[in-house]
């Protein structure tokens, strides 16, 4: 090790220690989400956050899930239990108003996978988590410089299950990562906190979520110029389902770009909440960021709450956001019906087409050899 490298390592260690010291009181002081927590606005914290916290506390020693991974040769999976480095990574994860819940997750740390991806993936790496009770897995994905990877994560729940997952994704310089998160927890509840750290690569992230109550917190942090993050989501809600999505696009460095497209089709008595924010740090000039939330409402009892946000502290940026909510276009329906397609199927087709916009863009350009 050269002297420079030794210095850099010592500096990194000192930084980590400082961060851990700063972080120490974070979980002690955190209070469970309540109605004064702006990050849970419209999210009914007194109902959902409380229920999740109670389940976690009541079943402190229960880990009722199973996980399967198909990593191929390109990645090295690592067991999590007793891995202090990974525990520290989770300890330093940011949340969107859910520090207290992350604290409860940390107490149960040990389930899940860490993937070090060092070669291009020939086939997508698949991680599958299953439960019919309570399961709190953690996933770590680290992509080495210049590597192209594709990861598909599936969370399957049956019955009135509870799944609470954390995901840490780190992408090194020149790497390209496509990551899909597919969660279907049936009549259960699902919460996921994701932290994407982009050190100069390209990340495409897609979520497709379904459950009685689903909360997504996705925080993308961009540290170098030329880094790019694209966040997509496509969801269909029906019955009494509640989908509560929160995103942050944090640009620490100028010259970087990010894009977000979240689309929902909301039917019956379902509720979709989207609260996103683009943060451009001081001096992160020449940032290019976009955020778009599109909702299609199918019933007169469906509800959407959309809170797109911008916080721009730099100059010479191109940032914008858009939010639109509307019923299904009658003309499109008429066109399909006029060609003999029954109305109900026509509705499904139009809704599929609406959502396919997001999934197609996700599958677009990155080649995974």
């Amino acid at each position, binding site marked *: 090790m050269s002297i420079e490298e030794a210095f850099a390592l010592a500096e990194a260690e000192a930084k980590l220690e400082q961060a851990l010291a700063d972080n120490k009181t974070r979980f002690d002081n955190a209070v469970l989400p309540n109605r004064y927590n702006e990050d849970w606005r419209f999210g009914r914290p007194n109902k959902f956050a409380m229920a999740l916290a109670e389940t976690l506390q009541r079943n402190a020693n229960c880990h009722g899930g199973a996980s399967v991974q198909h990593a191929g040769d390109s990645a090295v999976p690592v067991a999590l239990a007793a891995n202090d480095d990974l525990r520290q990574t989770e300890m330093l994860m940011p949340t969107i108003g859910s520090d207290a819940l992350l604290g409860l997750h940390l107490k149960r740390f040990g389930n899940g996978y860490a993937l070090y991806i060092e070669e291009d993936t020939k086939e997508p790496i698949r991680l599958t988590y299953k439960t019919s009770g309570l399961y709190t897995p953690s996933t770590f994905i680290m992509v080495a410089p210049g590597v192209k990877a594709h990861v598909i994560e599936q969370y399957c729940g049956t019955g009135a299950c509870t799944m609470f997952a954390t995901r840490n994704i780190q992408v090194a310089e020149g790497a390209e990562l496509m990551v899909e998160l597919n969660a279907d927890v049936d009549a259960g509840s699902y919460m996921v906190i994701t932290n994407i750290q982009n050190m100069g690569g390209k990340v495409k992230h897609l979520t497709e979520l379904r459950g009685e109550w689903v909360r997504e917190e996705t925080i993308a942090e961009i540290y170098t110029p030329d880094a790019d993050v694209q966040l997509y989501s496509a969801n269909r809600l029906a019955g009494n389902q509640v989908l509560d999505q929160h995103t942050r696009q944090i640009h620490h460095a100028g010259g970087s770009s990010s894009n977000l497209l979240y689309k929902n089709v909301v039917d019956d008595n379902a509720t979709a909440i989207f609260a996103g924010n683009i943060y451009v740090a001081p001096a992160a000039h020449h940032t290019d960021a976009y955020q778009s939330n599109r909702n299609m409402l*199918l019933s007169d009892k469906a*509800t959407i709450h959309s809170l797109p946000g911008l916080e721009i502290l730099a100059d010479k940026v191109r940032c914008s956001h858009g939010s639109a909510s509307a019923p299904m276009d009658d003309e499109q329906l008429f066109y399909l019906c006029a060609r003999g397609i029954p109305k109900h199927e026509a509705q499904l087709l139009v809704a599929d087409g609406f959502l396919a916009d997001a999934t197609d863009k996700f599958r677009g350009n990155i080649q995974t050899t």
Partner: protein
Amino acid sequence: MDESPFQIDTRGEFAFPENHRFDAGYGLTEATIDYICDAKGEPDWVRAFRKDALRRFREMPMPTHWAPQGINDLDFDKIRYYLAHGTAPYKSWEDVPDDVKRTFERLGVPEQERAFLAGVDAQYDSETAYNNMREELSKQGVIFVNSTEGLRDYEHIFRPWFGKVIPVNDNKFSALNHAAFSGGSFIYVPKGVKLSQPLQAYFRINSESMGQFERTLIIADEGAELMYMEGCTAPKYDSATLHSGVVELVALKGAKIQYVTVQNWATNVYNLVIQRGLAMEDAEIRWIDCNIGSGLTMKYPAVVLQGRRARGEVVSISLAHSGQLQDTGARMIHAAPDTTSNIVAKSISIGEGRASYRGEVNVLKGMKGCKNNTECDALLINPSSRTDTYPAISVNGNASAVQHEASVSQVDEEMLFYMQQRGLTRAQAMSLAVNGFINDLVKEFPMEYSVELRRLIDLEMEDSIG
């Protein structure tokens, strides 16, 4: 400077020694309220009403969970809650410092208003200037009085709507205003009367000028139309550090109300104003809002669309300099079917200034055919300027369409280069570009305001670009 009764700071804001006839002192207690009621000679129900509001004000929490941090610095015990005119020292136009005179000249403020703004009220003969207009108004049955007269002399008209659009327990600052209100205008326009001239607060300057806890209630009866203007573009010094006004508009069936505000307080002022209008069937309410001054502004003009086919609109311009936070926006509550609303907000951040848009659009359950369009544009002038956008959109049901678009940009270097090539200074080029940015909104303001606004932006740009 020492000989002059004025004190000027670097931004051309100025002060002069005060000598108020009525001064309730610092802090807000029951005794303060008794003092205000006695000074104004108010009926007993108002006194009881104020005391009830004070109790609620004390009980309610600050809106710290969402409001900008700056609001925490507010110390309610260090504020004077009632100051009224009286024996202001005699000043003449000659005493006004040259800097201030120059600003007024540049802005093109009419001579009489200039004198008033500079505090030269002894010279200002508002009675004669506006007497003709007042006669004209009373012939049409229009009531245009201040809040004290309104509740005392026209109780049967104003009391039924007083505190109905913005109830006392709406939020902490609403309760504060209900407890300590003074100043403002109470206006009633009878059925079918369409006022061709805008009403201005200037009209009744002789009585009570713009209050700290201003209270305005405007009722436009069926089919009536009016435009009301308050504030001014000239820098206005004020010793009171908290302005917490409440403005209630009631537009009955088919009525139209346009409310124009231009605010340019000194930067030591907290400007926390609650403005809300109630639009009944086929009625229309437009808020045209421009915030240039004050250290912290929190102001979200709202329209509750209560009747079918009602229409609401907010047009908002804000300009934030170093040391300023303009937290402005709009609220649209669609509480009836087929209602439409439109929000256009543009902000400019200069130096270390911070401009935020905070809005709410809510289409309530069961409402069909509602439409909203929201556009927010922000312009950043310097590298350390800041802008934020925090909209909240809620839609219930599948029979309404709501869209929101926001963007952030800066003045194009190429555009500036092009103009400088043709001989403009950088400041001139910048002010031309900024004026172009807000041009379509400035047109919504009455003529004299829009001219003043343009000139004001010229001035601001000169200061910031040099």
